[in-house]
């Protein structure tokens, strides 16, 4: 037999056993590969210690031998190979059910969405309002741009809990998150001993507005309504920040949406399994506190692998884990539309348009499950983005919001404003159509809904609303506010030139006017 076919561990063992001072036990189990015909002779002549066994099925002879026996086997012409029979193998412990069904958000929500291969959220800032972030985690690659403690009386940053790091990993982790190049702003709102206070959350939301972050992720909630916090979320959204909020883990009973997910302008996120089916724990609509429907959307949030605050990864479940998936998708979309001043608005619209409910109710998943593969499928066909850009560039390039997407009134779907008619008596007639269900007459012509605006009242609108929203009426709260008219003001003083924009609500008729800098109001002139 060639010595090369002897297990080196056996060679080592019996070499050591030859030395007189060796502590090595002389007897050792060996497995010799030998044909059945030759095995009988070997069984008789082998100087073995104890019984010798031959296994004809696999043509292996097992024996405990000392140095002489080992030498005999090595020199035997019919032995093909010698192995260590006492070798133990480290059998990997079987994965438990949770580990077997766990995935990273990147694997499920990003998947193979090649249409978005160049969109990793570069240049997009996502604020993570949570327990803090372990910024030194390898997966963040130094993209945690700032860490601020919003907890009263505490300047401590970092993550002692783990929740915030897991959330941030699903948003912007290089190997774990959806938007691998997004910047993370860590806003810690949870102190070391339990819940977050209203003040700390308001402080964090205020920072989001002041810093004009693109997206804020709020994987937090309460079982009780908070009018103030809901109003703060609305104010943040009106300032142009995309506000993703976890729907809550109080399902499957109805009326279990948490505050602040119940806020009108939040993007309330339900949790699904990796197949898009809603998780049992995910809170369900209808909205227990207000008239508007919630949740808005759903994404992957069960057994999610993401970054651990101790390094490496860990598995968590909850609507907390689904919310960063949506924030990550939005980051990719905002980057995709980054040359458009309405990038955030377009991203949110596309997100809701493309979501697929997979036959589940609105109360379970809102408009449906979202992921980049779902978006890819959507944009290959007729899409809101196609429609929005076509209108914007060809039909009414100077005024997107006159052609914008509105929501509210009797129609529960989003609407498109087609025409504003200025009437001699000072009233206005608006022509609208439902975007999802276009009505046509017998001849195939479009049929529009007409809204007459008669009653005008003063309504204050912030400058940022002009930029990003122009949708929410300060009077009735419905998404019906549109610009009607803009006039340039010639200032005699050397002031920054500005324009006045008149706005009106389609539904309650309230009106307002506001001076805005010329560059912002230029679109309305």
């Amino acid at each position: 037999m060639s010595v090369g076919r002897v297990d080196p561990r056996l060679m080592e063992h019996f070499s050591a056993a030859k030395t007189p001072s060796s502590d090595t036990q002389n007897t050792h189990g060996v497995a010799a590969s030998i044909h059945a015909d030759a095995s009988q002779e070997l069984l008789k002549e082998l100087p073995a210690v104890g019984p010798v066994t031959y296994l004809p099925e696999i043509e292996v002879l097992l024996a405990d031998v000392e140095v002489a026996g080992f030498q005999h086997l090595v020199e035997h012409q019919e032995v093909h190979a010698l192995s260590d029979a006492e070798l133990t193998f480290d059998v990997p412990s079987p994965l438990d059910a949770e580990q077997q069904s766990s995935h990273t958000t990147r694997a499920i929500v990003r998947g193979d969405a090649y249409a978005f291969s160049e969109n990793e959220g570069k240049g997009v800032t996502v604020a993570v309002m949570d327990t803090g972030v372990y910024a030194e985690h390898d997966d963040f690659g130094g993209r945690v741009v700032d860490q601020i403690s919003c907890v009263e009386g505490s300047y401590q940053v970092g993550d002692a809990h783990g929740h915030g790091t897991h959330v941030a990993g699903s948003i912007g982790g290089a190997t774990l998150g959806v938007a691998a190049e997004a910047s993370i702003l860590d806003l810690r709102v949870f102190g070391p001993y339990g819940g977050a206070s209203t003040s700390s959350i308001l402080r964090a939301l205020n920072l989001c507005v002041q810093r004009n972050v693109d997206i804020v992720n709020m994987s937090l909630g309460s079982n009780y309504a908070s009018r103030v916090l809901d109003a703060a979320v609305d104010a943040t959204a009106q300032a142009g920040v995309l506000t993703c909020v976890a729907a809550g883990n109080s399902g499957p009973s109805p009326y279990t949406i948490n505050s602040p997910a119940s806020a009108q302008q939040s993007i309330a996120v339900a949790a699904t399994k990796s197949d898009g089916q809603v998780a049992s724990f995910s809170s369900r609509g209808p909205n227990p506190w207000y008239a508007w429907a919630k949740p808005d959307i759903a994404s992957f949030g069960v057994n999610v692998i993401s970054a651990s605050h101790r390094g490496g990864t860990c598995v968590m479940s909850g609507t907390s884990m689904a919310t960063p998936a949506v924030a990550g998708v939005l980051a990719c979309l905002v980057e995709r539309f980054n040359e458009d001043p309405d990038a955030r608005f377009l991203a949110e619209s596309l997100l809701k348009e493309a979501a697929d409910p997979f036959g589940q109710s609105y109360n379970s998943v809102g408009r449906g499950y979202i992921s980049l593969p779902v978006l890819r499928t959507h944009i290959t066909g007729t899409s809101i983005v196609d429609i929005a850009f076509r209108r914007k560039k060809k039909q009414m390039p100077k005024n997107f919001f006159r052609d914008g997407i509105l929501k509210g009134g009797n129609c529960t779907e989003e609407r498109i404003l087609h025409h504003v008619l200025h009437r001699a008596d000072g009233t206005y007639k608006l022509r609208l159509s439902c975007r999802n269900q276009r009505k046509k007459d017998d001849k195939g012509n479009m049929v529009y809904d007409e809204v007459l605006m008669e009653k005008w009242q003063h309504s204050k609108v912030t400058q940022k609303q002009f930029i990003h929203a122009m949708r929410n009426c300060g009077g009735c709260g419905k998404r019906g506010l549109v610009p009607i008219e803009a006039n340039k003001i010639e200032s005699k003083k050397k002031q920054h030139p500005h324009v006045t924009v008149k706005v009106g609500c389609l539904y309650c008729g309230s009106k307002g006017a506001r001076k805005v800098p010329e560059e912002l109001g230029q679109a309305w002139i």
Partner: protein
Amino acid sequence: MTPMSAEQKMTSCLNLLSRGGGRVSVQYEGEFDEFKPGLNEEWVVEHFEGLNMLTLDLPSHGVLCMMHPAVLNFEEERHDFQPLEEQE
């Protein structure tokens, strides 16, 4: 978000009064300068200008300032917001 009605505000004020005042979060409309004369500025803990909101430490004799028409919503400070991780 619809503002609190006068009845809701009064009920909340009385509840706050019975507890001897406390820390409240307030949403107001309009400019803060218009609302400021209705407050003792020493009560202002923090002003969130981007949100048109305030955190106030109201003494018992100051709770009725929440009836000011510029106040849209207010509630006592809470600490019950939790991370929404599902516990197995």
